[in-house]
């Protein structure tokens, strides 16, 4: 297909079909169904192919966006997929879960006119197209450098480092604590947003490139970082922010009160929704409240809904301040999640048998803006009320697990338990140790973790090539 010489601006972002809300709330299949080829081409043709593409400047892994979109417009999907893979190892993942509205799509020139290109959807389309053809051809293996790199953690940060360094000829081993690779992509983000088969496919691709994968290996327990450094020339820590926060409220240890990590892990990693075929149980509660307002909270509330519960979100500010992606909030609303805005839980009340029965809450109003620029919630005195509830999921945040910090002398740790690493290179205070992703930034995003991985890989490669 040939690009028309001069065409009228087409500002009509092509919609991606979704399962209807009444249907999808009954199943665990993916909600968004992806573009068909014709729609993808229509969307791709809208791209202006900017000489200085502003979209690229806001993609943390520097994908050549106009180039891959051009291939779609021309109908050459194989070439497009190849272009994508040059910079992004996990396009099928990013195309689905990247907050594109605040990354690449936010800086697309067409945003001023409200018609920014649906970059994420196009990325997803190519990745899925390629998978449907039987996957990417495995590139030829580069010459071995003989250098060995250890990667701690099999999340997006670690996968990116491994992918970049293996292609440069280094020997790479990933050590992962859980029995499955993927980090939050497998234990946190639900199947209905990111099918696990996709993550498995990307991990298999890495294995084909020659990355060695060791699961069931807890660095700091099975072996310390110092011990690994005796065997490896360089080491990257991408261990994420997996330590769940609780609110320290009275009654928080009652049965039926979960951290988001527990609730989602039971469902996703352990496949609780297939109990008893998979053996880890998950309770079927009638009324579930999720406390929090981020992507994690949306995932928990939508999971509870699919397990048949009446599902509520309790959030202390208003809809405007919800930190979750708008798309996910809308999905949750369409599916029937009930939002209790400006509400703060105070304590949990048990049923006498150890199970939570009620939450005592307080209503809030919005006051002056705080440091984050969002209006601060202020309690309304005397507004306490009781909400009956069989289960509560606490989705108020996570921080890095102290396991590695505690067992690695010489590694500088910040106030919030994060590993301190250079922004540009990922270097830590410890020689031959790099870090990136959530373990450095605190809970952030997939694409930021991948961007950090890319920078660290570059710096590790420089180090390994200079010595």
């Amino acid at each position, binding site marked *: 297909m040939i690009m028309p010489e001069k065409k009228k601006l087409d500002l009509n972002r092509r919609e991606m079909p979704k399962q209807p809300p009444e249907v999808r709330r009954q199943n665990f299949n993916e909600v968004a169904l992806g573009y068909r080829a014709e729609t993808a081409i229509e969307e791709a043709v809208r791209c202006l192919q900017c000489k200085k593409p502003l979209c690229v400047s806001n993609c943390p892994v520097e994908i050549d966006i106009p180039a891959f979109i051009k291939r779609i417009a021309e109908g050459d999907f194989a070439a497009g997929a190849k272009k994508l893979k040059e910079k992004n190892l996990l396009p099928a993942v990013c195309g689905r879960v990247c907050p594109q509205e605040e990354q690449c799509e936010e800086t697309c020139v067409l945003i001023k006119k409200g018609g920014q290109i649906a970059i994420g959807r196009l990325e997803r389309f190519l990745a899925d197209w390629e998978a449907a053809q039987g996957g990417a051809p495995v590139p030829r293996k580069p010459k071995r450098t003989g250098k060995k790199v250890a990667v701690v953690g099999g999340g997006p940060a670690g996968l990116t480092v491994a992918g970049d360094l293996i292609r440069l000829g280094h020997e790479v081993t990933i050590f992962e604590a859980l029995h499955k690779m993927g980090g939050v992509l497998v234990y946190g983000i639900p199947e209905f947003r990111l099918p696990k088969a996709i993550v498995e496919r990307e991990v298999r691709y890495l294995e084909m490139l020659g990355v060695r994968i060791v699961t069931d290996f807890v660095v700091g327990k099975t072996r310390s970082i110092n011990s690994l450094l005796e065997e490896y020339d360089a080491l990257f820590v991408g261990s994420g922010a997996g330590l769940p926060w609780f609110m320290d409220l009275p009654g928080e*240890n009652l049965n039926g009160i979960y951290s988001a990590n527990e609730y989602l892990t039971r469902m996703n990693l352990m496949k609780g929704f297939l109990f008893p075929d998979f053996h880890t149980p998950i*309770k079927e509660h009638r009324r579930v409240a999720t406390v929090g307002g981020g992507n994690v909270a949306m995932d928990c509330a939508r999971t509870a809904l699919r397990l048949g519960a009446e599902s509520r979100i309790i959030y202390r500010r208003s809809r405007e301040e919800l930190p979750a992606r708008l798309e996910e909030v809308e999905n949750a609303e369409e599916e029937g999640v009930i939002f209790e805005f400006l509400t703060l839980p105070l304590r949990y009340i048990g049923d006498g048998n150890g199970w939570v029965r009620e939450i005592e809450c307080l209503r809030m109003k919005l006051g002056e803006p705080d440091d984050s620029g969002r209006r601060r919630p202020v309690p309304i005195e005397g507004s306490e009320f009781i909400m009956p509830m069989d289960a509560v999921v606490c989705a108020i945040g996570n921080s890095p697990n102290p396991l590695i910090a505690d067992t690695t002398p010489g590694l500088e740790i910040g106030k919030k338990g994060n590993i301190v690493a250079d922004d540009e290179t990922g270097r830590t205070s410890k020689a031959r140790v790099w870090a990136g992703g959530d373990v450095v930034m605190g809970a952030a995003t997939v694409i930021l973790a991948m961007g950090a991985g890319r920078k660290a890989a570059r710096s590790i490669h420089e180090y390994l090539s200079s010595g």
Partner: protein
Amino acid sequence: MFKVLQNEMHVPNIHLLVVEAPEVAREIKPGQFVIVRPSEEGERIPLNVSDWDREAGTLTIFFMNAGSSTDLLASVEAGSEIPTVVGPLGRETEIEKYGTVLLVGGCYGIGSIYPIARALKDQGNNVVTIIEGRSSYLIFWEDRLAEVSDQLIVITRDGTKGLKGHISRLPEIVSTLDTPVDRMIINGCTHLLKRGSDASRPLGIKTIVSLNPIMIDGTGMCGVCRVTVGSETKFACVDGPDFDGHEVDWAELRQRRRTYITEEVVPTRTSRCEEHAASRRDG
């Protein structure tokens, strides 16, 4: 994958598992545990380790057939492989020269108290080991424990071996010892841990218990293992599993352990005759 070298019922309902896990065997210390998964669909089962061979790279584990997942683990044949053995997890039991230490093991704890006894003995402690079971046929490893203890006491509920009764006879036992007890350490089921702690409290003996709440990851990621100890919430998998038995909120621990009782225990304890009947009716 991890190769199972031995897996058999050792005494009624308690199984002995020997599995190859060289990395774990190299690092493990007394009081730490591992998590195993018997199959790809399986639960992650936390289990204490009762012995290891660093050279051969093997772990020895006793487990009780308590429900569906341990039942499945029991069915794994020697020579085959299981997908997960991860560890060592948790903190090791604090081993110092205390003086006289009373060790108490019941159920699988009869096994897992063994490496603790050995380490304490190596440190020059006077080690008195008490093992407890419902009946004589549930007692095992007496000879091995005797080797690493200065004194070994057996208690059976029915009196078919050693003293009759249970750990509540602690005051009598303590009164027969030549030296005061400086510390007590208990491994086994929650019931024993609590009963032992209750018995030692009036005697003023510092008591360490190895807790076994429900766990998933075992690395501090999910929080399901939270226990209240001295009015603070702890994650047993990373802050424990050893805690001061006089500080543990036992009622809460018991209640949390019962979370999945309807999903897990009830189905394995019923015959499922109704289901069979129903399936025949349907066709």
